[in-house]
């Protein structure tokens, strides 16, 4: 870990690699994050509308507020992180694992490259930078999903929904979301890099490390999610 954050040989090469990783993680994960977040927001709105209508005690415009709060505090960061643990985590672990067993990491070592710094540092930097951006996008699309489902289902009007979305907004919720996102980005990248970088063997071991990266990342994500909520809420 120490070597992963030590001084780079040539900063330009590290920046280039960081941007490549950011593009892979960010652009590559956009479709799945967008689809899942939109439908999570939509289904949340429908579920709340169903429950509110049966109670008949709560005005329907509150749904906008509930969807916003749920997306910011819980659904967007956690669901996004679990999706990214599956997609990005397995990708990182298998990429590094393949580089290890095909001696590509040895080749870098012999050239004099600080391999943990070059291979792990940019991935972690990119994940910590990109995951919060994806989560912000997930929040936006989730809220829009709630609007689309609710207005489409005639539970509320557009004006009512966005009145709810704006009602009682607290910047502190966004702060908690960003703390979670940064921590989740760190967890996914560091666990996956560790599992991939330390692979020994062949194809079977690469598969195992990839699976372990996803499983351990997901477990750490849900534990850290609880700890952050417990400490900050």
């Amino acid at each position, binding site marked *: 870990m120490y070597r992963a954050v030590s001084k780079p040989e040539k900063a330009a090469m590290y920046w280039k690699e960081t941007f490549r990783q950011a593009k892979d993680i960010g652009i590559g994960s956009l479709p799945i994050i967008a689809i899942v977040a939109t439908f999570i927001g939509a289904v949340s709105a429908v579920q709340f509308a169903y429950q509110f209508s049966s109670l008949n005690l709560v005005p329907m415009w509150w749904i906008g507020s509930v969807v916003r709060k749920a997306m910011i505090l819980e659904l967007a960061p956690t669901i996004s992180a679990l999706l990214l643990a599956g997609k990005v985590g397995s990708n990182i672990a298998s990429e590094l694992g393949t580089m290890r067993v*095909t*001696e*590509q990491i040895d*080749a870098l070592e012999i*050239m*004099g490259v600080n391999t943990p710094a070059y291979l792990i540092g940019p991935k972690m930097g990119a994940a910590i930078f990109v995951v919060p951006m994806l989560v912000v996008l997930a929040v936006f699309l989730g809220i829009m999903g709630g609007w689309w489902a609710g207005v489409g289902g005639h539970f509320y009007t557009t004006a009512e929904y966005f009145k709810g979305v704006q009602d009682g907004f607290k910047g502190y919720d966004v702060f908690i979301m960003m703390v979670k996102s940064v921590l989740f980005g760190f967890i996914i990248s560091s666990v996956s890099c560790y599992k991939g970088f330390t692979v020994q063997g062949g194809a079977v071991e690469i598969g195992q490390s990839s699976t372990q990266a996803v499983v351990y990342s997901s477990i750490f994500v849900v534990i850290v999610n609880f700890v952050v909520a417990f400490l900050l809420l």
Partner: protein
Amino acid sequence: MIEIKNITKSFGTAQVLKGVSATFESGKCNLIIGKSGSGKTVTLKCMVGLLEPDSGYILFDGRNITEMKFNERKEVRKEIGMLFQGTALFDSLSVQENVSFPLDMFSNMSAEEKLDRVNFCLGRVNLVNTNKKYPGELSGGMKKRVGIARAIVMNPKYLFCDEPNSGLDPKTSIVIDHLIQEITEEYNITTVVNTHDMNSVMGIGDKVIFIHEGSKYWEGTNKDILKITDGELFDFIFASDFLKDLRLRAHFENDK
């Protein structure tokens, strides 16, 4: 010149190297030969620093790398080029980017200078019009040549080749062997080749070290090796009945 002195290396309870000492001369192709599992790859990995020997030391022109710190060792590594058994080319980079990688990482050359150097190295290994191709689009022999081009792009003082002929047909193997020999002589490089290919031994073995069960068993030139009449080295060289027959016939012809 590279010297190794009393190198030992164990993995758990298995002692793979039992005090190997040897000298590898500059401007020559120094071959390490031996059966599979004899310890030749471990010797090579200790020499390039991928494995730490348990005891003994390794001198690169008098510089003891076993006692060096990480940053000092990095400086020596910049003088090393290595051709891997599986070539270890970076799959996500084109041929040009693969060869240029050490220059991008460690040199202050302009983009034009780097391209000139890359083209020179690719030309030196007889590869033209392959700059934009990816490793997955190349044949085994072409990958080896790209590996050699990448190994020499930084003008190394030491070149290590791990099984350079593995997976190649006999004709391509000879081409690769000659390329290694030419480059060694042209740039006065200390070249260490790890092989069990007898064609390589006879073709480019300026100096040959035979490792058997973790110890140096024999040392000499490719001319001396044919004088061997018995023992482990004889069994290794003349492993096939076909070669043994040829040798007996040669003896018979000489006696007549």
